[in-house]
């Protein structure tokens, strides 16, 4: 009989601390400063491919915003409709008038966003950072650390296997790790290559 695992894998709320920074140390520092009210700039815009960590940083910033500080956060700005664009436009104007702050993110640099011209130029007015993709070494390090946090032993050959078989963006890799964690719990087996193959197959990958 298969043992059903309880949902005990610790929830992984995005924080600055568990952001895998790779080549994005400066961007991470600026977002943290903005949230804590230590940045002189009022508008910060991050862009990068899907899975590059935009939403992670935005959610971490919302959670870490200093008390009494107003931080407007806008994710996926490339998809904002007209009223939402005006709202963001107003938020930026207000922030510049009165010390609030705006943290926005999207999939393209300001100049290439399909938005109102006056909003586009305002997003490019503050500090703009591209979130750069992680290298495979960064990802391996992350998988190792994340496995340790979950109390899993993840052999190097398994890490190599995951990186050579799966899409290599962080959300996909995290999802795979979650899957392995549950699979190994419910089958009461250590994580080995055969287990990984079984688990991925059972999941239809």
């Amino acid at each position, binding site marked *: 009989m298969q043992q059903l695992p309880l949902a005990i894998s610790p929830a992984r709320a995005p924080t600055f601390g568990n952001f895998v920074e790779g080549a994005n140390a400066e961007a991470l520092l600026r977002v943290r400063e903005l949230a804590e009210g230590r940045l002189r700039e009022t508008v910060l815009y991050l862009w990068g491919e899907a899975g590059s960590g935009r939403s992670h940083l935005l959610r971490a910033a919302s959670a870490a915003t200093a008390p009494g500080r107003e931080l407007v956060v806008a994710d996926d700005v490339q998809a904002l409709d007209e009223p939402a664009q*005006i709202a963001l436009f*107003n938020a930026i104007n207000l922030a510049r008038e009165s010390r609030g702050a705006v943290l926005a993110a999207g999939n393209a640099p300001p*100049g*290439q966003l399909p938005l109102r*011209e*006056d909003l586009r*130029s305002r997003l*490019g*007015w503050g500090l703009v950072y591209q979130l750069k993709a992680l290298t495979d070494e960064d990802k391996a390090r992350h998988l190792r650390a994340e496995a340790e946090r979950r109390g899993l032993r993840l052999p190097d050959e398994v890490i190599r296997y995951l990186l050579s*078989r799966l899409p290599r963006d962080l959300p996909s890799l995290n999802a795979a790790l979650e899957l392995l964690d549950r699979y190994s719990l419910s089958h009461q087996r250590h994580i080995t290559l055969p287990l990984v193959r079984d688990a991925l197959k059972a999941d239809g990958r």
Partner: protein
Amino acid sequence: MQILWDACLRRLEQELPAQQFNTWIRPLSPEGAAESDTLTLAAPNRFVLELVRERFATRIERLASEASGRDLGLRFVLARGADPGSRPAPSAARDSNEVPTVLERARLNRGFTFDSFVTGKANQLARAAAIQVAENPGISYNPLFIYGGVGLGKTHLLQAIGNHLAEQRAQARIRYIHAEQYVTDVVRAYQQRSFDDFKRYYHSLDLLLIDDIQFFSNKGRTQEEFFYAFNALVEAHKQIVITCDTYPKEITGMEERLISRFGWGLTVAIEPPELEMRVAIVLKKAEAESLTLSEEIAFFIAKHIRSNVRELEGALKKVLAYSRFTARELSLDLAKEALRDILNVANRQITVEGIQKTVAEYFKIRISDMHSKKRSRNVARPRQVAMALAKDLTQMSLPEIGEAFGNRDHTTVLHACRTIATLRKKDSVINRDYLVLEQVLKG
């Protein structure tokens, strides 16, 4: 404190590269009494202050505590006589109990003045008209209608008029408002049935500065209210200044009677700045941060950021932030590095098809060879290079990459990546080919 600081200096001089030490640490000077439990360091300008706080504060604090044998706090201040322009505007740190100042009531940002407005061919007419109106409100041109593309300084000019008049006449009733906010105010007045207060307030102004009037488009109720305010103010010889992203006749969704009134006074355009003016703008913005920027760096930024003044400002900020982050002095190389992702955005979407095409062209083979089963060296090697680039520059899985190269197995991709990695170490020609291709693809 001087003795203590000298001890810290000796240690820091040993620890840091000479250039960093001379640029950031040497300009600091200690302040305060010797027995104080806080070491106060005065920095010559805000830029140095922020950089030192960011990069060296922890180290300095530890050294000072060691040298003094007790726990010392660390505090940074701007040196007396430091450029006042780099201090935060008083309104920024206002006490909530204070009575709002003229500028606060008017919603004016005191940084936007005629002095800080960089003039060139693109905007000299608009600036001259604005000064004329600020000197003689209600008398010369009414309304003054300023139009131009985004981020060219319309708001700056508009607020400069307000700041100028506020300085000349402390009692003047001035109001700057963004059109979008005006729309909101009309809706609120409607909901709260407070139109009388609304009217009384707007009709009593000496100077109404209204920004981005195109936001009134298709807002009938707002247009009607504004029509009354406009008439009342003009009749009373009170000044109205309007900005817009386009020429009055081009505004869509605006009542004809308003459009014709916009043309009663003077309509002037602001054009995008030419290169020399963009250089001047960058230098001026740097000056506002009490920084001397070399012409070379200003020229580099101005040459590459052509779109509008906001993005120029953003680019300069990025360079300064990067300099602080890396604790390196401003230089052309540093500016190039800091702006690399802004400048390289044209080719940012790297796809496996793009890689195959670029690599095929580079090695003068056919794109179809990327998918073919041919195994001759002159085709196989470029294919391996392309696979390795696909692994390094995209987030695709190796099976997906294999599929894109004529349905190959992921082990073939893995083998290609290893082969190329080994070859790059041994063969400088392959290594160079690889780096060139990588650069081309990254833009």
